[in-house]
């Protein structure tokens, strides 16, 4: 048994599988899943006019209920579902964060005041872009309500993904999470060609990566005779010799997961999808998929492959460095704000990987904190993007943000806050996050990675700062977009994101305690 495993596993549950299923422990997943099913039924049976309010009640109610259960479950550490699901500290923190972020994302998706034509989604995704049908639907004020079942299903997958303790569960969760997102990405009301293209790219590449993931699972199964992470870890300790099978399996598994976290060189879908997808969905997916995927990655690496730490560390090391650098470097010449944030999210993935690579409880805690900080900031940033508009919809080209501070000082200030947080300026959540992962990494001896991270941070700071330059230091042009006053939905989401960004920057202690107490993954 590796040193890590000894450190990580302190309980004797290793050989003990719970008989049956602890339903309360997996209730958050079940609640959301149940709500999703109900939501599908609502689509079928509830009259069109009533669908939106009903769906909203279901979504908000179920998310809040799930959140309540997660909070109630705090401190739980158990493995249930015949070893398929691990409900432990990290899982619960991620689930909690996912639920809160999902709630904010739901608010953004429910926003109707921003776009004069309705919400951010095509009234009928099946209608041809620009066709008479579409215009008719728009005129009638149809709203797409199928987004809600998709949303809930994706959320189900996300909640299960970091909890999955065997690779089959993980694969299923991955697909449950991904498939609805593929569809959601293609449902933008405006710029539908881009949106559809994003959906296609996301789907094909996502499926492609799933195939890798699955094949990797197959190899590991072939090696260990089980898809359980614990069993794989044990087999690795027992017979560390079978090089090729394990190496191939591990590599392909990593490819699938790294695709989801958008690590270089598996990142290329990210800019296209982030740019093309409807902005609330981009915000939702940028924040939550990253959490869920890192949750799964962490569990696979720490629990399943912890014994092979010395094998995967150098590779992930290079990938992390590349991810930070490539993401940051390409972002500096972007002209579309959503695309820029997509590259930024790639770079951020690299920073989180630093925490992952610390391979220590501190690394896990710091990665969790970073994910929380990043998720709130990101969803807030996309909320702002959804509000900055001109006649053709969202004004995502950076030139249209020139002098925005004149038109709306408050929004410009909030967006600047998010940019500074992403850049990692102190007194914002992003700084504490970066500080945490760097600290964990240096404590584990990954000093050079931190130095690369520092260099990448500087490069990244350039493009975050550039947005501030454009908003504050340039004079408004006739093309400058205006900021639409949103309804309470977006306002709440934005306020929450901004508040968390500041509070986590100034008083991070409670959350740091939370992630520290989350301890380690259960085995």
């Amino acid at each position, binding site marked *: 048994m590796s040193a890590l495993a000894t450190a990580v596993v302190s309980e004797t549950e290793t050989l003990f599988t719970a008989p049956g299923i602890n339903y309360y422990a997996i209730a958050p997943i079940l609640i959301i899943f149940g709500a999703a099913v109900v939501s599908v039924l609502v689509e079928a049976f509830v009259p069109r006019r009533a669908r939106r309010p009903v769906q909203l009640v279901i979504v908000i109610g179920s998310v809040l209920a799930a959140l309540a259960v997660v909070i109630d479950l705090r401190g739980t550490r158990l493995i249930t579902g015949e070893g398929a699901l691990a409900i432990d500290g990290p899982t619960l923190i991620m689930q909690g964060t996912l639920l809160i972020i999902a709630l904010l994302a739901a608010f953004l998706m429910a926003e109707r005041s921003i776009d004069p034509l309705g919400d951010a989604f095509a009234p009928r995704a099946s209608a041809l872009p620009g066709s008479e049908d579409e215009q008719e639907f728009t005129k009638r004020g149809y709203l797409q309500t199928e987004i809600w079942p998709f949303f809930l299903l994706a959320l189900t997958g996300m909640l299960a993904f970091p909890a999955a303790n065997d690779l089959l569960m993980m694969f299923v969760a991955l697909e449950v999470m991904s498939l609805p997102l593929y569809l959601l990405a293609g449902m933008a009301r405006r710029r539908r060609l881009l949106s559809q293209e994003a959906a*296609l*790219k996301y789907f*094909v*590449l996502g499926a*492609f*990566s799933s195939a*890798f993931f699955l094949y990797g699972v197959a190899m590991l199964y072939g090696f260990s005779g089980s898809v359980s992470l614990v069993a794989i870890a044990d087999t690795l300790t027992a017979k560390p010799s079978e*090089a*090729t099978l*394990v*190496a*191939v399996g*591990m*590599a*392909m598994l*990593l*490819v699938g997961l790294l*695709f989801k976290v958008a690590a*270089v*060189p*598996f990142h*290329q*879908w990210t*800019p*296209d999808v982030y740019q093309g997808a409807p902005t609330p969905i981009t915000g939702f997916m940028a924040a939550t998929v990253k959490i869920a995927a890192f949750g799964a990655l962490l569990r696979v690496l720490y629990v399943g492959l912890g014994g092979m730490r*010395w*094998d*995967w560390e*150098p*590779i992930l090391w290079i*990938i992390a460095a590349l991810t930070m650098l*490539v993401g940051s*470097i*390409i*972002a*500096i*010449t*972007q002209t579309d704000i959503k695309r820029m944030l997509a590259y930024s999210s790639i770079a951020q993935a690299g920073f989180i990987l630093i925490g992952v690579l610390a391979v220590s409880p501190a690394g896990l805690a710091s990665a969790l904190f970073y994910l929380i900080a990043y998720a709130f900031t990101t969803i807030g940033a996309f909320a702002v993007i959804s509000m900055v508009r001109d006649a053709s919809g969202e004004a995502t080209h950076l030139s249209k943000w020139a002098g925005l501070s004149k038109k709306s000082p408050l929004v410009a200030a909030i967006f600047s806050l998010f940019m500074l947080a992403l850049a990692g300026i102190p007194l914002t959540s992003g700084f504490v996050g970066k500080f945490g992962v760097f600290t964990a990494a240096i404590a584990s001896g990954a000093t050079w990675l931190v130095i690369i991270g520092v260099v990448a941070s500087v*490069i990244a700071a*350039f493009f975050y700062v550039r947005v501030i330059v454009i908003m504050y230091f340039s004079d408004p042009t006739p093309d400058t977009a205006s900021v639409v006053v949103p309804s309470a939905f977006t306002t709440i989401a934005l306020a929450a994101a901004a508040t968390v960004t500041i509070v986590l920057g100034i008083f991070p202690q409670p959350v740091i305690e939370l992630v520290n107490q989350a301890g380690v993954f259960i085995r």
Partner: protein
Amino acid sequence: MTELMPAEGVFSLIWLLIALPLAGAVILLFGGRRTNAWGPYLGILTVGASAVIGILMLLGMMQNDPEQRTIGQTLFTWVFVGDFSADMAFQLDQLSIVFVLLITVVGTLIHIYSLGYMAHDPDKRKFFGYLNLFVAAMLLLVLANNYLLLYVGWEGVGLASYLLISFWQIKPSAAAAGKKAFIINRVGDVGLSLAIMLMFVTFGSVGFQDVFGVAGQASEGTLTAIGLLLLLAACGKSAQFPLQAWLLDAMEGPTPVSALIHAATMVTAGVYLIVRSNVIFTAAEWAAIAVIVVGMITIWMGAIIGSAKDDIKKSLAGSTMSQIGYMIMAAGLGPIGYVFAIFHLLMHGVFKAGLFLGAGSVMHGMNDNVNMRRYGALRPLMLITSTTFIICYLAIIGIPPFDGFFSKDDIIHASFERSPIIGVLAMLAAGLTGFYMTRMVAMTFFGKARWEDDVHPHESPKVMTIPLIILAIGATFGGLSLVYWGNIESWLEPVTGIETMELALPAWVFELTTLVLVIIGAVIGWMTYARREVPIEAPRGSWLTRAARKDLYGDAVNDVLVVQPTFYASRWLVWFDNKGVDGFVNGSAAFIGGLSGRLRHYQTGFIRSYALSMVGGAVLVVLALVLVRAS
């Protein structure tokens, strides 16, 4: 070392000596236009009050025993760090009181004179403010009890000099001259700074008493270094070779300034510094020799320049250089010379102030023209000015019984004591003095009138002539009285030490020889410039004349050796900063930007290309893992 006496009675006012003119300066300079009306009078009053205090102190000091004439007054500890400490403290002894009197008395006279000379200048108030500032700084210089405080006065007079040289700063030449003076002085200041530092490192203190008390214990090398550094400082302040170039330009300032600062007092600060540090120079022979050499070179440079200039003030400035050269040289002669250096300094202060003020008076009547070739035959029109000028002239060339005779002859004697070569050179230079001063007097007051058309020469008002008369009286009797009545040698002896001269020949031989040489020089001058027609356009002259007109190429040398290379280096560094250092910074930014531009094109937008990079990545990861596992 003499014990410091506590400052009691009149001596408790030492600080007031400085504070009075300083207060005057502050009020005049910061008081603004409100003080225009009465400001100049305040200026005179404060300096005059200082003079009175100074005289009282002299009287008080004379009542004490010679050993009890060194008075110390400490106000507070000024700078203190670790082992370093310098007090805001004054030391009044026989040497400083001489300077105090010179500065305050001559200063008062020149203040009064300025009342007339500057009567119509709109910035008269500022002028008096600067003059007061100068007096305060100069007093601080001579009263300080440690080198660091001396440095404050040292630069203070430099500042005042700068401000006054460029007083008519609307003239670019005046502004440039002031700047030049300050910068060249700064070179000298480097010497003073380093000397102070070396003293601290060597002796652990920069106070006069401490340093002189243990100076003998230091190695000769160190003392020589300190001596040379002090000499550098003296060269800067006293316009000695090689830092002489600023003095001639300094004549851009108003004439009273030239009289006070660039003749009587400030430029002699170098002499003060060397004499004050006599302990060090006595112990460091090579430094003393360097002092003699510098002094001798300057004596000749100044004399040659003075002989060739047609500008009356510049000619006088050359003369000043030369005379200070005498003093510096004397100070290099050792204990034998210190007293004479100070003696000559005092005498020079009086007659040179008289000469400058006289020149100012002439200019006043000649529409501020300084070209002696446009003077001539002014004597009948300016009786007082010419008489006083001629008295001072007799003093400077050393005709008995005028004061220069006593002081200069002593120096020449002392130099023979040291070495015949030095003596002969000093003696010959005295002859040259006779020539150029006669030339000046002849061109100005005698010969034919060569005035410009609209000039109506006239005598100056009383406020200007009275100081002239007083100075002339001083020039007439000063030497006599200090030799026969006051005995300056024994007065200064406790400070400088003394050494009796043992000359191979009786003193009158030297005196006579010198006198003969001076008269020969004077006669040549007279024959050339009074008897013959003086052309209005200067003749081309010999190469030496041409060189002397260009200040013996002092500026050209500085320009080629220092100024040009500095600006060349500066421009090169600007280029290097932009292209090199900043170029690297901007270049790395541009590099990353370029890299970004390239990298983003790998994001082709084609799904299959993305898939390819995923497959490629996967293959690499697999290979890497297999390799890692295999190894």
